[in-house]
């Protein structure tokens, strides 16, 4: 198989599936179930997971390789994120098979958009060329903008979509500015070239400015405070399965870019960005937790919690390269597992109309839906960071990296913050298991049965969360070998003498 094909196999599979779904959608008569399309999408995702696994296999045998003129680089890092994103997408698709009831005719587009979005995210994680990152980012962003407004009937949906779109574009402009400045400082936009260009550049200040701009742009994507403002509103208005997806996969991808950019692209500027990362972490944790503290709407609550978790994840960045990457990666995985799980369970409980919104509505759910409540409880515990869950081990591991590198104060602050955080998770948890109030919506909750795919999905998420907490060895092994190497994609660019582009080709 050609290297180019191999490098992009998962993306290609997803794209083809997406196109297929898109094409088949109009073929199916209106009013008929779009489930087969969903199954097709699931199949495609599974195939892309298999492709990723194959990539990993190749990786193990022949080492890191690049493709498309060093635009993409397949290393353990990207394979990890490919797997993560594909798994999140798979689980989300499984759980949302039955989400769109019959009056919604564009369920097919939903599946296609999810697949395309995933493709974009995967591009983000595997490319070492900032332009490609930007394209990937746009693909994933635009699909999520659309997905956020998918329940068009609701006023909140279009509002959510608009807010996400406007603010997202606003932030994208900053990110783009950052790329421009990178280019200005080093004459290249390839991460490897930036790293080497930084050593010779005449205008290092521009590079510093570039780092700042990229931090702003990606800070928005990972919803780190103070760029978090969109998160609660968008999550509240977006459909629950979409929130499950967009609170995990694009965030993971953005973190992947951030990791690559900061640790591989601008390691020389660590002294400049590390403080900012620290501040972002502190602000995110604090604001996320404080905002969630008095929140009544469950989805908003989880939105704030995801802000806080971005903060925890940023704490991992304070470690040394290897620690930081492995800590952040593990945390991303754990966070993805538990957050997807929690939101998918909420999807199952509250349904398409989302009649159950506030914590009071969830009071006594455990009586009607004991298994779902137990699962949600488990995910909440993981989000709190109770041992023997992925959330705990992730936090433990991420913070060990920080402490190991001397950021004890930051770690203590973060852990204390997680202590405050347990208040709101616990409020929801306690509500789940309380006797229902007389007029709570849970009292009139229809005794819906859980569909098999959805059950498989939430159970898989729960098992993943549990496995990450109890038997994290295999994942740990993967992430500990994931710290991406900086392959010099371009030769060092001289001031302006030789042809700078495309002097190296794909292996």
């Amino acid at each position: 198989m050609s290297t180019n094909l191999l490098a992009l196999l998962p993306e290609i599979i997803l794209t083809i599936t997406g196109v297929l779904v898109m094409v088949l959608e109009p073929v199916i008569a209106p009013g008929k179930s779009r489930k087969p399309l969903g199954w097709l999408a699931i199949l495609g995702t599974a195939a892309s997971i298999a492709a990723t696994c194959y990539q990993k296999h190749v990786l193990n045998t022949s080492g890191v390789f690049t493709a498309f003129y060093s635009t993409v680089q397949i290393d353990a890092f990207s394979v990890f994120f490919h797997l993560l994103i594909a798994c999140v997408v798979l689980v989300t698709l499984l759980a949302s098979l039955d989400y769109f009831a019959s009056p919604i005719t564009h369920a097919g587009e939903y599946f296609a958009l999810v697949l395309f979005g995933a493709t974009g995210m995967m591009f983000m994680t595997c490319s070492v060329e900032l332009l490609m990152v930007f394209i990937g980012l746009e693909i994933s962003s635009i699909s999520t903008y659309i997905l956020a407004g998918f329940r068009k009937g609701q006023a909140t949906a279009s509002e959510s979509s608009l807010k996400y779109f406007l603010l997202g574009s606003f932030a994208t402009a900053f990110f783009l500015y950052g790329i421009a400045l990178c280019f200005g400082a080093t004459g290249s936009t390839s991460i490897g070239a930036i790293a080497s260009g930084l050593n010779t550049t005449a205008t290092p200040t521009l590079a510093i400015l570039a780092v700042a701009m990229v931090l702003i742009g990606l800070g928005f994507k990972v919803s780190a405070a103070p760029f978090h403002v969109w998160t609660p509103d968008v999550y509240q208005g977006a459909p629950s399965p979409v929130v499950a997806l967009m609170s995990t996969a694009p965030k993971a991808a953005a973190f992947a870019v951030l990791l690559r950019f900061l640790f591989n692209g601008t390691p020389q500027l660590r002294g400049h960005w590390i403080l900012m990362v620290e501040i972002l972490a502190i602000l995110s944790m604090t604001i996320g937790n404080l905002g969630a503290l008095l929140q009544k709407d469950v989805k908003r609550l989880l939105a704030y919690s995801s802000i806080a978790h971005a903060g925890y994840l940023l704490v991992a960045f304070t470690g040394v390269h290897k620690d930081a990457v492995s800590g952040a990666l593990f945390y991303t995985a754990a966070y993805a597992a538990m957050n997807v799980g929690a939101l998918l369970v909420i999807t199952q409980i509250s349904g398409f109309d989302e009649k159950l919104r506030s914590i009071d509505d969830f009071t006594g759910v455990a009586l009607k839906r004991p298994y779902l409540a137990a699962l949600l409880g488990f995910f909440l515990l993981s989000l709190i960071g109770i041992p023997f869950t992925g959330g705990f081990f992730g936090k433990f591991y991420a913070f060990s990296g920080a402490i190991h590198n001397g950021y004890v104060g930051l770690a203590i602050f973060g852990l204390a913050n997680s202590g405050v955080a347990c208040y709101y998770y616990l409020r929801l948890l306690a509500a789940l298991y309380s006797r229902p109030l007389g007029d709570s919506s849970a009292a009139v909750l229809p005794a819906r049965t859980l569909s098999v795919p959805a059950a498989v999905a939430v159970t898989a998420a729960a098992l993943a969360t549990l496995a990450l907490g109890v038997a994290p060895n295999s994942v740990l092994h993967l992430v500990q070998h994931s710290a991406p190497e900086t392959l010099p994609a371009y030769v060092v660019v001289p001031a302006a003498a030789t042809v700078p582009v495309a002097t190296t080709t794909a292996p």
Partner: protein
Amino acid sequence: MVPIAYYLVLAAILFCIGIAAFLIKRNVITIFMSIELMLNAVNLTFVAFAHMWHQVSGQIFVFFVMVVAAAEAAVGLAIIIALFRTRQTLNVDSVNLMKN
């Protein structure tokens, strides 16, 4: 014989006017326009740097940005239309159902 820096400053001015427009304008479409303005400012930066480095890749970036802007415009305007359908308004100040 204009210093590159002046082009960059010009771009910065445009960029920040774009930010200001985003902040000040109430009409959603105008706000969207201010984003386009910001992108244009970045494009100018790219071109200036491309000129400085004597490299064509900077120009190609601009090209890609245009494509992206066009795509965004399509989607963004569709979103605005969807919003207008449900809310009958284009004023962002009245788009605040969700808060706190």
